[in-house]
């Protein structure tokens, strides 16, 4: 395929079609817009560099890009820089912590993810939110909330079945 030959126009094509979806993923994990945009740029540079590792036999290109984006965003939240940033804003928003929480709800709400997630049973939407929106790995989610790893997997499975219906995937 074209991208494998590292044709710049094919990367532009990917950017134009998928940057918003990937940025949606990244900016739910990273709340700071500037840093999220840096991560998005890094993600596309990585896609460009590592496209030869993508194997169409093993799945869709979007899935591969999504995982690059998700991992990059998760890595970044683990880095010191963001931790500092978090601490700063924690101090700043000490008084308005409740308002900030409200805004966070609003941010997901405005984009219509809540619309589909709210139709899921609480335990399922919880798993999706933590994995997708907070950027937890399965293992972290299991440890943090004391849910067996197998249960995390089956709940995500049920949630995906329900989303499939809602999003009308055939």
């Amino acid at each position, binding site marked *: 395929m074209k991208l494998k030959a590292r044709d710049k126009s094919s990367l532009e094509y990917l950017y134009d079609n998928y940057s918003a979806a990937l940025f949606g993923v990244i900016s739910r994990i990273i709340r700071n817009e500037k840093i999220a945009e840096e991560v998005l740029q890094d993600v596309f*540079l990585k896609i460009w560099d590592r496209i030869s590792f993508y194997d169409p036999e093993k799945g869709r290109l979007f899935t591969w890009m*999504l995982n690059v984006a998700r991992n990059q965003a998760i890595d970044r939240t683990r880095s010191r820089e963001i931790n500092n940033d978090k601490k700063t804003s924690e101090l700043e928003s000490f008084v308005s912590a409740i308002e900030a929480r409200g805004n966070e709800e609003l941010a997901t709400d405005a984009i219509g993810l809540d619309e589909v997630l709210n139709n899921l049973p609480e335990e399922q939407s919880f798993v999706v939110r933590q994995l997708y929106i907070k950027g937890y790995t399965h293992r972290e989610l299991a440890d943090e909330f004391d849910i067996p790893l197998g249960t995390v997997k089956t709940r995500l499975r049920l949630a995906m079945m329900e989303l499939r219906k809602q999003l009308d995937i055939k």
Partner: protein
Amino acid sequence: MNIEEYISTGVLEAYVLGELTPTQRLDVESKLRQEPTLREELRLIEQTLEAFAQRGAIKPGEGVRSALLSKLDGQKEAKVVPINSQPTKLAMAASVAIALLTSYLSYYYYRQYQQTSQTLGNLVAQSQQLAQDYSVVNERLDKMQNDLSIMGSAAFSRIVMKGTDNAPDAMASVYWNSATQEVYLSIHQMRALTQESQYQLWAIVEGKPVNAGVFDMDPGGLLAMKPVSGASAFAVTVEPRGGMPTPNMATMQVIGTMPKT
């Protein structure tokens, strides 16, 4: 385990999100090659995930695209530089590489610097705000301690002034130290006045009203008034802003006499 059971464990979802160990991943991949049902299920999961992500899409800022493309151009140039055995060409390539590296490093350090100075700026602003808040709170604490010591002091008499027919609900107190002549006013309830008028406190000394100062509503705690000696009663009237030499008795709001000792 049959295929349906295998699917229902959620192993494919975990595979799609890259959450499996390398061994588990290889296992899933070999099963996928054998089972068309699994491949179909994987397709549905991936499409659901993509549709979900598209649903939550957020458009990044315009600058990202152009920044990305110009970065790629930079990378390309670095790779296009032809290197052959000629020493001048080699030197050129080296200088290009060094120039690229240097500009990358300066960009990198500039960004680090920007981030650090921004963080520092935030912290300085915060500590200034905290210091300000602290001194405000400290001042209020000082005032409250002072107020409390006056209210609890045996040297001060408390004269409760009750509302007159003009303002039946109004109430205020005077704390008066007859030895030092200090007078403090505490408002319990008095209505707000227009901009043009002000309350004026009077001490009744030997049957005559003596000006003890004007005040507005809500001073927050005790209000220091003019020193007074030999008072037998205190009263408050409404006067034009700035006060008057003699009271307008018709506007009297509250009045109270010294408790008999």
